[in-house]
């Protein structure tokens, strides 16, 4: 059944037991993003140390309302970026984006995406891709705000 392909165990695990959930202090920037088609929302905070691509992602905390895909993707995101550098997080975002926009035809790099490879099945459902990207959009936006590059 296709459904199991999409909702991998990993996704359901993250959905039921999300990592790093909740809004914490201290933080450098907080953003609020919505998915206009379904109304899902995420409030996300980042705490960085240092600046530029070498800055370290010290914490990502969030409060989210949404489907299992958007919740799980945000949880996985925190695993992927916390304790790494901003430069590394952006590279992971690129790889995740490539996977999600690949219509299920892209082979994901497990070394880079770790649990994120579980979203390969979601990429076959264009309407759900936005769900998987909601947290990532918020994260990139928050980092940009810290860096002051946001217009």
């Amino acid at each position: 059944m296709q459904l199991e392909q999409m909702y991998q165990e990993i996704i359901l695990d993250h959905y039921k037991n999300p990592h790093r959930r909740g809004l914490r202090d201290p933080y450098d920037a907080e953003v609020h993003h919505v998915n206009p088609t379904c109304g899902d929302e995420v409030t996300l905070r980042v705490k960085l140390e240092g600046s530029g691509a070498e800055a370290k992602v010290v914490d990502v905390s969030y409060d989210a309302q949404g489907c299992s895909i958007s919740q799980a993707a945000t949880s996985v995101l925190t695993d992927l970026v916390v304790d790494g550098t901003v430069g590394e997080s952006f590279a992971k975002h690129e790889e995740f984006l490539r996977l999600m926009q690949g219509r299920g035809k892209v082979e994901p790099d497990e070394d880079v995406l770790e649990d994120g490879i579980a979203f390969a099945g979601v990429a076959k459902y264009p309407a759900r891709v936005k769900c998987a990207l909601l947290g990532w959009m918020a994260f990139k936006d928050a980092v940009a705000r810290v860096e002051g590059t946001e217009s």
Partner: protein
Amino acid sequence: MTVAAGPLPLDVAAIRGDFAILGRTVRDGKPLVYLDSGATSQRPRQVLDAERTFLETSNAAVHRGAHQLSEEATDAYEGARARIASFVGVDQEEVVFTKNATEGINLVAYAMSNSSTSGPSAARFRLGPGDEVVITEVEHHANLVPWQQVCERTGATLRWFGVTSDGRVDLSELDSLVNERTKVVAFTHQSNVSGAITPVARIVKRAKEVGALTVLDACQSVPHMPVDFRALDVDFAVFSGHKMLGPSGIGVLYGRFELLSAMPPFITGGSMIELVRMEGSTFAPPPQRFEAGVPMTSQAIGLAAAVDYLSVVGLERVHAHEMALTAAALRGLSEVDGVHIVGPTDLTERGGAVSFVIDGVHAHDAGQVLDSLGVEIRVGHHCAWPLHRKLGVAASVRASFYLYNTLEEVDVLVEAVREAKRFFGVA
């Protein structure tokens, strides 16, 4: 068309035979269970054939040529207008073709703001600081954002009716909300989320007392039950072809002739003019004044065929059929633990949109399970975000019915909802 005797008043099998798409399968070979007609309906072969026949025999620019093809095309186009007008109880010159219902509402809103730079006959449409526009919190964005925008353009104030817990327009403040400052009251005939039917007469009566114009969003009523705009006594009303077995790309704006005659144009260009000089132009009488450019000719003909189709089946019977399906859905869903209906839970003053949430299963996830079982429903806020916010629901699942749906399909829906709960471990 033959009609079977029995509990349901329609010969649904015969009707389904007219809709080729209903025979297809989705995902892993699941029969299609199309429960998203509230978003857009499917079209019977009679509608497709009418458009094609026109295009293969009489296609030409209407109102613009003196040759035979153009004559035939103009007759077909204006004949379509006449049939559609009589379907909703109004005169031919009171029907303006737009690309969808959304354009129709924008047309009225822009004509109102354009009134400030138009002649004295348009004065009654003017909006400015101190004037009020009243809408409701259940509105589809199409009947909400255009009014926000016209208030921004003119300085008028937007006010709105609230919502009851079962998704109806809350009219308890009718007399204070609609007052001497009110210039226009725009509201939906039937909510596309809760299915609740608005008490049109009460609002129209109050609007008339204070001299406000009324605009009815009839997108979810005209396709599903007999509607007579003259009897409802509204000033303007809109609906869309694609929700009533007709083509996409065509909608209808009804306006009382006297009002259309006094109203300035919205979209301007060819075919809507009386006289054009570089220094200035004057405009044709309605409905031409509001139909600039080459219109959606074949689509008007397709919509007239849809109206004929619905008339042969009979709107009372379509409505009765949908009510039977709605009753079954409300009954079936109420038996599933943790399912909550967003809207009235019985058939009093409601139509056939059934929205709901499932404890512990997000609407998007439920939709995915349903889709995997062939059940095509809509998830999200259904372009009625304020209503959802007000009811404390981020996103809901909506099943919506039409004349081609069956009681068996309702059973598949209910069973699929149970499966969604099982899949996400909230059985």
